């Protein structure tokens, strides 16, 4: 459901008030629907545009700082546009001792960005997470809902290329496949 990510710079104008209004109307319940509304906006646009937060605050009759506080509190919300492919590296204790930091470093080196950042061409966002709950399979890398287990640094290039081409075949026999809600390859 990621639309117009490449036009993110122009979203201030690209996202119409009407679209946001519709999302608000759908989820608003007294004053408790803030998270639902933000989730809906995030699902539609891939991130929370500042413009949208202002509209939400106005519609909900709340101060902007309330909405902003919620939006920055939860990890699930992002105020910056995300890349087309989301690469998540687990840095939980088990993955950490099995060498996840080296995986992150390798991704950072290959993509030329730091963890938490997005490549300038808006193709990749690199994130770390504290545990994915599959510690026996660590280190784990998730790319667009697809899980790679027992990753070693030499696989990093393949993982990036796989996600890039949209080619779902891979040499890794350990991997678990999950193909829910995949982004459509370009």
């Amino acid at each position: 459901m990621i639309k117009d990510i490449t036009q993110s710079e122009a979203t201030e104008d690209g996202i119409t008030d009407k679209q946001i209004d519709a999302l608000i109307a759908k989820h608003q319940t007294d004053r408790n629907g803030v998270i639902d509304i933000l989730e809906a906006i995030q699902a539609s646009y891939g991130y929370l545009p500042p413009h949208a937060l202002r509209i939400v605050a106005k519609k909900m009759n709340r101060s902007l700082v309330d909405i902003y506080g919620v939006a920055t509190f939860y990890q699930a919300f992002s105020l910056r546009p995300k890349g087309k492919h989301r690469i998540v590296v687990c840095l939980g204790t088990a993955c950490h001792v099995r060498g996840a930091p080296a995986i992150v470093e390798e991704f950072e080196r290959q993509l030329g960005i730091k963890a938490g950042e997005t490549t300038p061409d808006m193709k990749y966002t690199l994130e770390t997470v504290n545990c994915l709950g599959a510690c026996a399979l660590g280190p784990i890398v998730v790319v667009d809902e697809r899980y790679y287990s027992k990753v070693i640094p030499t696989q990093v290039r393949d993982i990036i290329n796989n996600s890039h081409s949209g080619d779902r075949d891979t040499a890794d026999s350990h991997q678990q496949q999950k193909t829910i809600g995949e982004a459509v390859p370009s």
Partner: protein
Amino acid sequence: MINLVINGLPVAVEEGSTILEAAKYLGFPIPTLCHLEGLSNYGACRLCVVEIGEGPKARLVSSCTYQVEEGLKVRTASARVVKARKMVLELLLASCPQSKVIQDLASAHDVRQQRFRQEHEDCILCGLCIRMCEEQMMAKAIGFRNRGENRSIGTPFDMKSEECRLCGGCMYVCPACQLRCTYMEPEKAICGGCANLSPPCLEKSSFEDMMCYMDPCVACEIRKD
């Protein structure tokens, strides 16, 4: 009326009042930092800890947020309380040593040094300014942002707030920064930022628009130059 015992003295106070208020009524001093009459109780600083209950069930609670209960037994200065309070003060000193308010409190409780890694934060996240802004000034221009170690207080997007009327209430109540803003009386300033300033910062070109949370804090801005 609710009957309770504070430091062995029976007292009856109205339902809904806090231990802090009851203790104040009896004249027992409880130090506070994030408590201010007229603002809601928040319980952020933990300086007002008291011990309630007896024997193995005794526990520490923050008196500013704990409502009185029938038959409650409170000790406001037991050894355990004093120890906890000193620890809180040490932690406050570790994060924000330049605050005159914290220095005075530490001095009053005989805390001469602290054992933690020394930091120099501008903010102890007590939330006084946020409550001042919302509850007394009806503006709600500032609030908490992010979480965990990235938690901070400020305006959305770090931009000048539309709600803010430049009342200065936030700086007035701030225990960490109020003394940095006594630029008119340099002898009272303790951070040195303002005292080093000449000519006075009032002559700074964009002073009209400047205030802690809208633009960089006046004092910080000066210190930078």
